[in-house]
């Protein structure tokens, strides 16, 4: 088929737009990486784009020597691992029971789950409930409230329904109970969807900061990496209370007394906090897209 003039113009604009999309997506990351690796005093002069002008790792040293950072990293890892394992296991178990057609409570339980996708109690009643359950200033607030979630449950249930009943029937004839069937037959067959859910949960847990902020902000030993970065961001925003550009610049120059500027520490922390996500990104891409299509089709 011959390319018409419309095709040529369309393709040119298309390639231009998509390249633009790539540049706009990547530039902020590369810029922050360059800033984090640049000598902090030199950064104040501005003009750092994609490459450090005076290479230095002092921003990283300073960010990591902050007293909260080790605790924060430990908590971020702990909440991610604990939630990924417990939440995925619990959600899969419920999904299995709701996939059994003979189960009498299948429909009522499914309805109760689906309703939670559309209605929530709101911040204040939730806060008081958690407080009365002793979950304020507690690690449990990170994994317990979301032990099972409707969305993930529906994805896993759809997957289990696609598994042939004959596996379950033959195990039943041999006298296996449902828990045994779930552990020994269903879980191994569900590895692809469970991997998706583990990744969903891990990324969400790693990235979440609101619960630390609302429930655990008064306990330093319960802080997380995202929350530490959020506090830095909040103080950068607070510095913007001046009324003019001149103010903002003066403030930036006042930092000259300290060895590392907030901007450079923030850049280093941004990279540290994103690094785990970027490292697992190849897996994320594959499983997330997969998961989205399983869940999306059935809705």
């Amino acid at each position, binding site marked *: 088929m011959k390319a018409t003039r419309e095709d040529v113009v369309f393709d040119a604009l298309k390639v231009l737009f*998509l390249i633009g999309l790539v540049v706009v997506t990547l*530039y902020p990351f590369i810029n922050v990486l360059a800033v984090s690796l640049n000598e902090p005093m030199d950064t104040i002069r501005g003009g750092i784009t994609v490459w450090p002008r005076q290479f230095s790792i002092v921003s990283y040293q300073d960010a990591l020597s902050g007293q909260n950072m080790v605790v924060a990293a430990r908590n971020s890892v702990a909440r991610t691992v604990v939630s990924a394992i417990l939440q995925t296991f619990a959600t899969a178990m419920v999904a299995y029971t709701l996939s059994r057609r003979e*189960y009498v409570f299948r429909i009522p339980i499914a309805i109760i789950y689906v309703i939670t996708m559309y209605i929530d109690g709101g911040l204040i009643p939730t806060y008081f409930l958690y407080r009365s359950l002793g979950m304020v200033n507690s690690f449990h607030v990170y994994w317990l409230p979301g032990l099972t979630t409707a969305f993930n449950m529906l994805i896993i249930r759809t997957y289990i329904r696609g598994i042939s009943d004959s596996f379950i029937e033959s195990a039943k004839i041999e006298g296996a109970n449902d828990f045994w069937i779930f552990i020994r037959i269903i879980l191994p067959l569900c590895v692809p969807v469970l991997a998706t859910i583990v990744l969903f949960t891990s990324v969400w847990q790693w990235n979440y900061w609101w619960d630390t902020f609302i429930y655990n902000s008064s306990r330093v030993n319960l802080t997380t990496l995202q929350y530490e970065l959020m506090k830095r961001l909040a103080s950068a*925003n607070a510095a913007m209370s001046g009324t003019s550009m001149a103010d903002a610049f003066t403030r930036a120059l006042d930092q000259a007394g300290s060895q590392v500027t907030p901007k450079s520490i923030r850049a280093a922390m941004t990279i540290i906090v994103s690094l785990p*996500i970027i490292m697992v990104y190849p897996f994320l891409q594959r499983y997330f897209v997969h998961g989205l299509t399983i869940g999306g089709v059935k809705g």
Partner: protein
Amino acid sequence: MNPTESTFSAQHDALAPATLGRRNWSTIFRNQGVLMLMSIPFLVHLLVFRYGPIFGWVMAFQRYRPGRGFMDQEWVGLLQFQTLFADATFYRVLRNTLAMASIKLVMGTFFAILVAILINETRNRPFKRTVQTISYLPHFISWVVAANLVLEVLGPRGVVNDMLVGLGLMQERVLWMGRPDLFWWIIGWSHVWKTAGFGAIIYLAAMTSIDPQLYEAADIDGAGRLQRIWHITLPGIKPVFVILLILNIGQLMEAGFEQQYLLQNSLVMDYSEVFTIYVLRYGLQLQRYSFAAAAGIFRSVVSIVLIIGANTVAKRLGQETLM
């Protein structure tokens, strides 16, 4: 058991399999006891953690003081709601929430579909893969990180100022984050930056399920690229578009508080405050718990009405719907 009885019970089961009343519960417990043990504890957990707060709504009709039981409080009827609807800030918050949610919905959907169409029209596989891989990335990083990037890019020494001044389009550098008139659009564009690539996936999936024969037939009829997109691709993604639209309309009262909370500063407060931030400020910071709970209930109830309304309209129009 005599024959008449067994016939009756068989008939009964066949006629009304859903009525459990007459069935033998002890058999059910024996056969399904393990299933119950595997699901009911989690159901109880869900009722406590997800439905529990809904019972906490009673506090909106009280003057709640912590330290006393929920039922041992002063009841004030609709006073909190009256105060809410008389509060000027409430209307500003409502305006901000709806404005930013609408901007995000329209811009986010437009760019997701645009990216999907352009990727769908790309035949060069390595290029296609590269664009997809990179454009999904922002979806996976937190808003805390994304907000830091926004602050850098739009900062006094950021790339936007560098370029605009460098190209001579502006005389002076601008403190973009301090401009109240631009805050909604910064929210809109940063939303597009973070979600357009990933949002395109679901539209791309819908596009790949369009019958290729339709495109071949259009070629034979002499349709151009744009005509094919307009008459085949866009109608092909309509069901997905409608479902996502209904879901997003349910989110209109949310507007994504994280983003506003992380990007706001005192210069733009009048345009950045959305419902959840308002509830947070009155509730946990100013300790007007019952008032904040009332504001939260208003938000939840409007969300439900919106999603049911959108669903009903879609159903009337003969579209595939959620419920």
